[in-house]
Each structure stands twice: as C-alpha cells, then as structure tokens.
C-alpha cells in the first residue's frame, strides 16, 4: 500500500464525473472536490436572493448531494457543463427556499430513496407498505443505529452510499461479497430487534 498526501487532480468535468461514479477510496475526495469547486455559489445565493449564509449553504450542499445522486443514477446527461447544471439546481433550490416551498430541507434524500424503492411495487401492495412506514418512528430508528457496532454502521452506510457487496468487500476487511451480504443483513436484523425492543 502506498500513501499520497497530494489529492488527485480532477481537471475536467469528465474526470470528476468518472471519479464520482467509481465506488472506491477516491469517491469521497471527488465529492469534496465538487463541493469546493463551486462553493462560491453560496456567496452568490446570499447576494442574489438575500439569503442568510446558513440557508445559502444548505441550498448549495443539497445541490451537491443531489448532483452526486443524479450522476450515480446516470440522470446527468451532459447536455450542459457541470457548472451550468449545478447552477440551475442551486437557483431552483434558492427560489424554493424563498417561496417557503421547502418545509423540511433535510428530508429530500430520504423521501427520494424511499419513493424510489416503492416504485418497484404495484399500488395495492405499495399502499400497505406506505401505511406501515408512516407508523415507523424514525427518531427511535435513528437512535438505535447508534447502538449498532462501528463495523455494522460502516457496512450499512457504505451500502446506502451506493457501494455493492463486492466493492465493500474490496474496501473493508471481508473475504468475499457473500460474507459482506450476510454480515450486512445480520446488522439490519440486529437493528430491527433493537427497534422492536425499544418499541415494546
């Protein structure tokens, strides 16, 4: 293993996009590079829309996270430069903030990941699941996550970040993708037990 302190240079959009799509040790750095590259939008949001710095920062960080998500799901079609694409999303988010349409900014990603999964199910079954999800106490669930061990938390977080079992096995100390899958599902099962015990 070698170790470098100097970050890799993503000089073009293409290089940056490629790094964001690859689930390896460079991914997090590419995300931070994307954040850094256009961080001056925050100031722009403050000037153009008279937003407080905190709200402009939220709009910008949500923009970055949405863009990363879109790139990973191949929704960024490269019809414009990355900067133009980001700026459009950022402006929309600033306008949403002003119009008070965004009532809970932090729930954007959760909503999209849940609704994405439910898209796979027909309406009759979807309604059953939606009703059950509404009964779930997300605060308790999040608190219970803290009681999981460090390995479990990392495993579940990497999976949620889009890494597949094979990629997780390559990055963490697991022999095979099957071992990762078994461990991951055990962690999820443990979380369910913790959640159910607390509820009872």
């Amino acid at each position, binding site marked *: *293993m070698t*170790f470098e302190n100097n970050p890799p240079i993503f000089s073009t959009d293409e290089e940056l996009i490629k790094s964001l799509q690859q689930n390896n040790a460079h991914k997090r750095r590419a995300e931070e590079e994307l*954040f850094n590259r256009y961080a001056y939008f925050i100031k722009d949001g403050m000037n153009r829309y008279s937003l407080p710095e905190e709200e402009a920062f939220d709009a910008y960080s949500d923009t970055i996270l949405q863009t990363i998500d879109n790139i990973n799901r191949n929704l960024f079609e490269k019809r414009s430069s990355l900067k133009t694409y980001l700026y459009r999303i950022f402006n929309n988010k600033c306008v949403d903030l002003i119009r008070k349409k965004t009532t809970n900014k932090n729930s954007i990603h959760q909503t999209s990941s*849940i609704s994405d999964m439910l898209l796979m199910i027909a309406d009759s*079954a979807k309604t059953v*699941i939606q009703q059950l*999800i509404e009964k779930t106490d997300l605060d308790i*669930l999040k608190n219970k996550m803290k009681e999981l061990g460090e390995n479990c938390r990392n495993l579940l977080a990497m999976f949620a970040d889009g890494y597949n079992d094979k990629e997780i096995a390559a990055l963490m100390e697991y022999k095979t993708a099957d071992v990762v899958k078994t461990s991951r599902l055990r962690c999820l099962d443990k979380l*369910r037990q913790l959640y159910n015990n607390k509820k009872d």
Partner: protein
Amino acid sequence: MDNMEYIDDFFKGLPTDEQKQQFEQRIINDISFAEEVAFYVSATGAIKEQLTQEKKMQFRRIYKEQQKVIPITKQPVKKIVRYLAAASLVATVLLSTWLLSGDKTTPAQLANQYIQQNFQTLNVTMSGRQDSLQSGLILFNSGNLKDALVRFENIIKKDPANYLANKYAGIISLRLEYYDKALEYFTVMEADTTLFSNHGKFYKAVTLLKRNENGDKESAKMLLIEVKEHEMEGSKKAAEWLKVLNK
C-alpha cells in the same frame, strides 16, 4: 433473516413480472412479511438520510476551514460592474495598509491553508492486502476522525514505532486540534531515521503554527530552519513560510 435476504434480493435486483407479483401478493396476504418490507425500506431511507447529514457536516467543516483561510470573494458577473468602483477603492486602501504595515498573514493561517490542502482526505492506493491501516484511512476519508484515530492508536499500542500509524494518528490529532497528541506522534515519526523521506519535523512545525501559543511561532521557525537547511521533506514550503514569518 431469510425474509430479509429475499427482500434485499428483490430491491437490489431486477425482478421479473412473476417475481414482482409473488412479492406483492405476500405483502397483501402476510402482515408480518409486509412489516419486514416496511422496516427494510424505512431503515434504508434512514441510513441514507444519516449518511447525507454526515456528508453535509463534512461540507460544513470544509466550508468553515475555507472561510478561515480565504473568505469567498467570487461574485456573479452581472454584479462586477456595480462593485468595481468600490473594489478599486478597497484595493487602494488594502495596498496602502500592506505597504505601511507589511503582510499580516498569521502563523495559524499558514497552517490552516496547509491542513486544508493536504490533510482533508488521505489517499490510499490499493494493494490486494487489507489491513487495519487501510480501514483507518477509510474511516478518516469518510469523516469519522475519532474512530480513525482509535484505529491507529490501537496499532501503535501493539507496535509503538510504526511510522505510518504515528503519521496518520498525528495528522488526525492535528485535525481534531489535539495539539499535544499530534506533537507526540510526529516526534515518534521524526525519530525514525531509517527512512529516506520523513515529514516528522515539518509536521511538528505545522502543528506549532496552528496552535500558535506563546513561543510556538519561534519554536516552529527553528524547526523550519532545520528543515530548510538540511533539505528535509517540506523544505520548499519551509523556505516560503520563513520569508512570511520573518516579515
């Protein structure tokens, strides 16, 4: 567990129409299965949301660090003309101030800039071998600084002179502003004379500049002079900084 695997396979894969129908029928006819599906979907959403929050926190840290080093100055093109007159006035005032009082770059600013550029994420080039150093680096790069530090400190307990573990533990301690710890780790790192390349002395200077307590600037300067004169790792930066610090 069996149901969990079935549910996991369903959402990860590309189920056929027949598999979809079977899955949906089980949801409708078997309430305990439906509860497991709902839990899987809720938990996945909650984990993703938590991850999103962690990433936002990391962005916030980066943004705050940037603000300390270089306040954002880029303006939208349309507003440039409006600010041009004011900017030239400010520039004149700043230039006069600089000419009268010299460069005001503080030791902590130099250190902050270096930390921002070099210690935000640490790059791992993978080999086939998986070890604790590597998992510590993964934790560091995912923003879990405290967990990463514990990982490297465990390695140091077993192998106190481990150069890389001391180096990473020092860097993380510096990021967490545990300056005394950072200095200890970099001292161990510096003591390793078997290596051709050793940043230990230079990193100690960075730590002292960042801490910037009484006498730290002078101690850092002495270290930087040594680094420069003996052409150690960081000598170019040391020469650059000495010019600034001697103003």
